[in-house]
C-alpha cells in the first residue's frame, strides 16, 4: 500500500505561502511575491499529477473498485464516543480528479497574473489571497469529514470575498463582494442545518462511514418522515441548498454576475473553474446517500439544474459585457453538471450521469478558464469590458484569437474537442432518465453555441472600431497559460473517464450513442450558423429580431429582474416588517430598561441628596426622630 501522507503538502504549501505573503509580502518586490506564490502552486501541481498517476494507475482495486484512502488523520474535537470531528485527507477518485483540476487551473492563473496584474497596487496581497483560496479549495476537496468540508467551504467563501473586493476603493466592487458573501452565507445556513440533521440521524461526520452503502446513513432509510419525505431526504435537500448557493443555482445566483467586478484572473479561477463547482462536488461527495436513500432529493437537484441552465442561457444571449456573458455561461454549464448528477443512479451503467457530470466538470474547468483568461487578454488590450467597444480584433491578437476560438468550439460541443464528449454523455444520461429534461438541455446546447459565437464574432470579427491605440498581443506570461489550457481542452476528451471516476468507483464501458450524438452536434452547428448570420458581418438583423421579441428581450437584458425582486423582498418586507420592529423593541424596551435602571438610581440619589442640605434644622429633625425611634426599639421591642 502506497504511503500517501505526502499529500498533506499539497494544501499546506499554499497555506504557508499565504501567511508568509500576507504578513511579509509588502516588504518583498512584487515579482518576488508572484514567483513564490507560483512556485508553491507549481510544486502542488506536480505532486497532484504524481498522486493521480499513483492512485489511478497503480493502486490495487478492492472488489473492482478504487479504494478510498485516508492519507492523513488527526482527531480535532472529540464530542462523544461516536461523534468525532477529525481533520484529515481522503483520497478518492473524485478528490484526486479535483486535485488535478484545481492545481492545474490555479497554476495557470498564477502564471497569467504575473503578466496581467503587473504594476497593480497590492500585487503581493493578490498572490496571498490566491494562495489562501487554493488552500481552502484543496482543503474542501480533500476533506475526510463533513465538518472539515464545511470549514473549508466557509474559508472559500471568505477568499472569494477578499478577491472580488480586491479593488476595494471601487464602490461597485465592495457591493459585489458583500453580495457574494451574504448570499452564499445565507445558503450555508441550509448546509449547516443539513449537516446537523444528517449527523444526528447517523451519528457520524465521517464521509467514508456516511457514504458506505451498508452504513448507517443508507440503511437507516425506514425512519421518521416529515411531510412525506424521510428526514434523510430533507437533510440532503438542505445540504443541496448550501451547494446551490455556492454554485449559483437559481434563485441564489444573483451574486455571480456581480462577482465579475473582481480582476479577471480571479474570475477565471474562482468563478469558472473551482469555487462554483464546489456545490457539484458536494452532491457528488454525498452521492451514495442521494442515490440510495434520498431519491426525491436527486429530482430536486435535476430540475433546479435544468431550470438554471435554461434561465442563464437566455440571459446570456442579451448581455454586452463579455465577462457577464461568460458568467452566465458558467451558470448554465453548472446547471448541466447538476442535471447530470440528478438523473444518475448508482452503480455501473446506472451511474452514467455521475461519471458524465465529473467529466464535464473536468473539461469545463479547462475551457472556461481558457475563456476567462482570453477575455482578460482582450480587456487588457482594449481597456474596456464591453462588446460594443470591440471588433475586428483577430488581426491584432492572433494567439488569443485562436485559443478563444478553440474554447468556443469546445463549449459548443463540436467533436473532436473535449466539450463534445462530456456534453454528449450528459445528454445520453438525461435521455435515458426523463425526456423533458433531455429536450430542455438539448435546446440549451443550441443556445450555448449561439451566444458563445455571438460573443466570438462581436469581439474578433465585425466592423473595426477605431481604437485609441493599437491593441497589442499579451506578453508571454499571459499567452502560455492560454496555450496550455487550449491543449487541455482539445485532448482532455480522450481520457477514459469511465474507467477512473464513477459512482461506485468501478469500471464500466461507455460508447458513443450516435442517436444522441448526431443531433447534439447538429444543433451546435445550427447555433453557430445563426450567430454567423447575425454577427459576422455588420448588419442590423440582430436588432430587428430583438425589436420583434421586445418584451422577452428587455426582460432577459435586465436578467429577468431578479435583483429587483431581491431588493424588494429585503427592503420592503424584511427590513420593514421584521427588522424595524425588532430594532424598535431593542431600542425602546431593552435599552429603556437599562436607561430606566439608571434613571431610577438618579432619582433616588437626587432625593437622598436632600439629606446633606446644609440646613441645621433638617439635621436636628432627623437626629431627634432617629433618637426617638431607637428608644422605642430598645424599650419596647427588645424584650
Amino acid at each position, binding site marked *: 500500500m502506497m504511503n500517501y501522507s505526502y499529500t498533506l503538502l499539497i494544501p499546506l504549501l499554499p497555506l504557508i505561502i499565504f501567511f508568509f505573503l500576507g504578513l511579509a509580502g509588502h516588504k518583498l518586490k512584487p515579482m518576488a511575491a508572484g514567483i513564490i506564490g507560483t512556485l508553491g502552486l507549481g510544486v502542488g501541481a506536480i505532486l497532484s499529477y504524481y498522486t493521480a498517476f499513483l492512485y489511478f494507475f497503480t493502486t490495487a482495486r478492492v472488489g473492482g473498485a478504487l479504494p478510498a484512502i485516508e492519507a492523513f488523520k488527526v482527531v480535532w474535537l472529540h464530542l462523544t464516543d461516536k461523534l468525532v470531528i477529525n481533520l484529515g485527507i481522503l483520497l478518492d477518485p473524485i478528490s484526486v480528479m479535483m486535485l488535478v483540476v484545481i492545481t492545474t487551473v490555479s497554476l495557470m492563473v498564477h502564471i497569467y497574473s504575473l503578466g496581467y496584474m503587473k504594476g497593480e497596487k497590492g500585487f503581493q496581497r493578490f498572490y496571498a489571497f490566491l494562495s489562501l483560496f487554493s488552500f481552502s479549495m484543496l482543503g474542501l476537496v480533500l476533506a475526510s469529514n463533513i465538518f472539515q468540508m464545511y470549514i473549508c467551504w466557509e474559508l472559500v467563501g471568505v477568499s472569494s470575498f477578499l478577491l472580488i473586493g480586491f479593488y476595494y476603493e471601487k464602490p461597485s466592487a465592495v457591493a459585489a463582494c458583500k453580495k457574494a458573501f451574504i448570499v452564499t452565507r445565507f445558503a450555508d445556513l441550509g448546509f449547516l442545518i443539513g449537516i446537523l440533521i444528517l449527523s444526528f440521524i447517523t451519528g457520524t461526520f465521517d464521509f467514508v462511514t456516511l457514504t458506505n452503502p451498508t452504513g448507517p446513513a443508507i440503511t437507516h432509510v425506514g425512519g421518521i418522515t416529515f411531510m412525506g419525505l424521510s428526514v434523510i431526504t430533507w437533510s440532503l435537500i438542505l445540504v443541496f441548498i448550501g451547494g446551490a448557493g455556492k454554485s449559483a443555482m437559481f434563485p441564489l445566483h444573483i451574486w455571480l454576475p456581480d462577482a465579475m467586478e473582481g480582476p479577471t484572473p480571479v474570475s477565471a479561477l474562482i468563478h469558472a473553474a473551482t469555487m462554483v463547482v464546489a456545490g457539484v462536488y458536494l452532491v457528488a461527495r454525498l452521492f451514495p446517500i442521494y442515490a440510495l436513500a434520498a431519491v426525491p432529493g436527486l429530482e430536486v437537484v435535476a430540475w433546479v439544474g435544468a431550470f438554471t441552465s435554461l434561465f442563464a442561457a437566455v440571459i446570456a444571449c442579451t448581455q454586452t459585457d463579455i465577462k457577464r456573458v461568460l458568467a452566465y455561461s458558467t451558470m448554465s454549464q453548472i446547471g448541466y453538471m447538476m442535471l447530470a448528477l440528478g438523473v444518475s443512479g448508482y452503480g455501473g451503467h446506472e451511474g452514467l450521469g455521475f461519471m458524465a457530470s465529473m467529466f464535464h466538470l473536468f473539461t469545463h474547468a479547462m475551457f472556461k478558464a481558457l475563456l476567462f483568461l482570453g477575455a482578460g487578454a482582450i480587456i487588457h488590450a482594449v481597456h474596456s469590458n464591453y462588446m460594443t467597444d470591440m471588433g475586428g480584433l483577430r488581426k491584432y491578437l492572433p494567439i488569443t484569437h485562436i485559443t478563444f476560438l478553440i474554447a468556443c468550439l469546445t463549449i459548443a460541443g463540436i467533436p473532436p474537442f473535449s466539450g463534445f464528449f462530456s456534453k454528449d454523455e450528459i445528454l445520453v444520461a438525461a435521455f435515458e432518465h426523463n425526456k423533458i429534461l433531455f429536450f430542455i438541455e438539448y435546446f440549451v446546447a443550441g443556445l450555448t453555441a449561439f451566444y458563445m459565437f455571438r460573443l466570438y464574432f462581436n469581439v474578433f470579427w465585425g466592423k473595426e472600431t477605431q481604437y485609441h491605440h493599437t491593441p497589442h498581443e499579451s506578453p508571454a506570461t499571459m499567452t502560455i497559460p492560454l496555450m496550455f489550457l487550449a491543449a487541455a481542452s482539445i485532448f482532455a476528451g480522450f481520457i477514459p473517464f469511465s474507467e477512473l471516476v464513477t459512482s461506485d468507483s468501478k469500471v464500466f464501458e461507455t460508447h458513443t450513442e450516435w442517436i444522441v450524438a448526431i443531433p447534439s452536434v447538429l444543433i451546435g452547428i445550427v447555433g453557430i450558423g445563426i450567430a454567423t448570420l447575425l454577427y459576422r458581418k455588420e448588419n442590423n438583423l440582430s436588432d430587428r429580431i430583438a425589436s420583434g421579441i421586445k418584451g422577452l428581450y428587455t426582460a432577459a437584458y435586465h436578467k429577468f429582474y431578479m435583483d429587483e425582486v431581491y431588493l424588494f423582498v429585503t427592503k420592503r418586507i424584511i427590513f420593514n416588517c421584521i427588522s424595524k420592529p425588532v430594532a424598535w423593541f431593542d431600542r425602546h424596551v431593552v435599552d429603556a430598561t437599562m436607561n430606566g435602571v439608571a434613571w431610577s438610581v438618579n432619582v433616588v440619589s437626587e432625593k437622598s441628596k436632600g439629606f446633606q442640605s*446644609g*440646613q441645621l*434644622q433638617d439635621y436636628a429633625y432627623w437626629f*431627634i426622630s432617629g433618637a426617638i425611634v431607637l428608644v422605642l426599639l430598645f424599650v419596647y421591642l427588645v424584650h
Partner: protein
Amino acid sequence: MIQGIPLQYFLVISTLMFFIGIYGFLTRKNMITILMSIELILNSVNINFVAFNKYLYPDRLQGLFFTLIVIAVAAAEAAVAIAIIINIYRNFKSIEVDNVNEMKY
C-alpha cells in the same frame, strides 16, 4: 419630699419643657431663638436631676452638683454661641438659619 406631689409630676413638667424646647429648636428661624430653645432644654434637664435627687436619693448631693455644673456649662456655651452668631451676622448680614447652609452637596 414635698407633700402631696409625687415624683412623676416633676418629671412630666420637665418632659414637656424638654419637648417644647425641641419643637422650638426645630421650628424657629432666628438663631437667637434657637439658642433660647436650647436653654429651655437645659433647664428641663436641671429640673429632672433635682427632682430625682430630692425624691430618690436624699442622702447624696450628686443631682445638685450636676445641676450646678450644667448651669456653668450652659453659661459658657451661651457666650460662645453668641460670639459665633455675631460673627455670622457680620459675614452674612443675616441670622436666619436657612442662610447658613454652605456645607452642603
